[in-house]
């Protein structure tokens, strides 16, 4: 019985996207694909305990979902006679031959690009990707993002309607559009990861393991589908090296533990090894002349951190060199802020503070700006100013563990 339950869970994790993607391809309708896939999995839950797990669960699910979809179309045809001919013609057509897509030919990849289409709002892309590719239910996604189920359901329904009505295509973008579109997909995945890693909201767990795990799983999928894309590898490495520090990052008392104070023995060694492997792979590509993108550079920075057994062994000059590359690629104030943290280690807090203060206009509403300033002022012994900066940081931080850490640091000031 438990084995069957596990088989359904595993099939859901492994086959959901494939089933939805195959049905969407067949029927050209994401709504039908989603509903039929959900019904097929519900049927599996009902039948597998009695009938046993089929030898090819994925094939069984696809066939069952396919039948469910045709049942629904027939039902709708009866209800809406005027659409009958068009629908039946669709139904009886043989599947269309696959469009030429170069080396990549997987319905799931088409599904990812459709869900992350730039004509959809960012939040919609996130919700749609988690639902259609990740197989999360609407209540699960609503809980993860602290939004109302009905509002999320409406958002997804509206997106499905737009995809159909505006004919957002179901295909891998052309070679010339591919880099920009992959960037869009990675942004969605990184958003999911960060919402897990830096979960916001009072009463929320400081780290949402469900979301970080889902983001990693989906990024692994995209990596399997686009194995030659350096930024995909970079993002996966970045997530793995960040996730590896998850348990060390929050104390038993629920307080954030900054990188320098973490128990490095508690880091997840296999995840770090996998992350380092990916970074080395990208370094080799960079040596061969492929310029790394921002995720690869961020991953490399994290690789340097996770290579140091003790924080005192950290190679800060290499980290600073990587931030310099990142600034050239992305001269945003947030990157400059992170660079300043490395500057503090190499040139001292005074130099770093001057760099941070220059970002005040752009980052006044960003808690990390105030937290970084507070820490530098504390190290310089400027307690009064540090206290004021901690106050601001506490007021702006949304993560419970971070708020607890900043509050303690403030209260320790003399």
């Amino acid at each position, binding site marked *: 019985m438990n084995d069957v339950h596990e088989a359904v869970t595993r099939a859901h994790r492994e086959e959901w996207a494939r089933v939805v993607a195959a049905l969407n391809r067949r029927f050209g309708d994401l709504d039908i694909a989603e509903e039929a896939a959900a019904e097929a999995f519900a049927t599996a839950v009902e039948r597998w305990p009695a009938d046993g797990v089929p030898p090819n669960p994925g094939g069984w699910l696809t066939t069952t979902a396919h039948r469910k979809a045709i049942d629904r179309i027939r039902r709708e045809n009866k209800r809406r006679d005027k659409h009958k001919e068009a629908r039946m013609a669709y139904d009886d057509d043989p599947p269309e031959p696959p469009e030429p897509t170069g080396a990549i030919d997987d319905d799931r990849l088409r599904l990812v690009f459709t869900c992350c289409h730039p004509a959809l709002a960012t939040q919609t892309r996130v919700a749609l990707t988690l639902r259609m590719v990740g197989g999360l239910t609407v209540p699960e996604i609503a809980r993860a993002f602290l939004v109302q189920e009905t509002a999320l359901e409406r958002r997804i329904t509206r997106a499905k309607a737009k995809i159909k*009505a505006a*004919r*957002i*295509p179901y295909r891998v*973008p052309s070679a010339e559009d591919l880099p920009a579109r992959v960037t869009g997909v990675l942004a969605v995945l990184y958003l999911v990861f960060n919402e897990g890693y830096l979960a916001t909201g009072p009463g929320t767990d400081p780290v949402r393991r469900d979301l970080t795990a889902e983001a990693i799983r989906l990024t692994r999928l995209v990596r399997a589908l686009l194995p030659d894309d350096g930024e995909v590898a970079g993002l996966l490495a970045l997530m793995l090296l960040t996730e590896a520090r998850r348990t060390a990052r929050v104390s038993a008392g629920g307080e954030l533990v900054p990188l320098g104070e973490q128990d490095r023995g508690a880091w997840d060694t296999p995840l770090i090894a996998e992350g380092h492997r990916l970074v080395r792979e990208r370094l080799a590509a960079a040596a061969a002349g492929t310029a790394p993108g921002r995720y690869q550079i961020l991953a490399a920075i994290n690789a340097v951190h996770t290579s140091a057994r003790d924080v005192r062994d950290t190679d800060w000059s290499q980290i600073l060199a990587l931030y310099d590359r990142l600034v050239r690629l992305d001269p945003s104030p947030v990157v400059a802020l992170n660079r300043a943290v490395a500057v503090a280690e190499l040139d001292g807090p005074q130099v770093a503070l001057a760099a941070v203060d220059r970002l005040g206009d752009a980052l006044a509403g960003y808690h990390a700006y105030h937290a970084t300033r507070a820490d530098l002022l504390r190290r310089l012994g400027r307690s009064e100013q540090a206290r004021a900066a901690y106050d601001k940081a506490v007021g702006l931080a949304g993560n419970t563990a971070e708020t607890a850490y900043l509050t303690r640091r403030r209260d320790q000031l003399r």
Partner: protein
Amino acid sequence: MQYLVSVIDDKANPGSTDQRSAISAFNERLIAEGYWVFAGGLADTDTATVVDNRGEQPVFSDGPFVESKEYLAGVWVWEAPDLDVALGLAAEASKVCDRKIEVRPFQ
């Protein structure tokens, strides 16, 4: 699939008026590549008349049906296989017209 492609201008921050020849050249290309169905620039919103004959008698009123800073300056109708093609063309159109473009599918 047909798309209504609206050219949106902004009264407070109007696009350049010197786009005529670029737009003509773009139209030529739309025709040559089979996307062109219809195109037309519109006179100022002040020249619009609103007609309402839902009651007993038609009522004519002066001016656009909604006053707003942004307004419709012209339209295209394009025939395109999917939204990606339409959005690609719209990105060019926005440059050529020096204005924002809305792409909306016909039912």
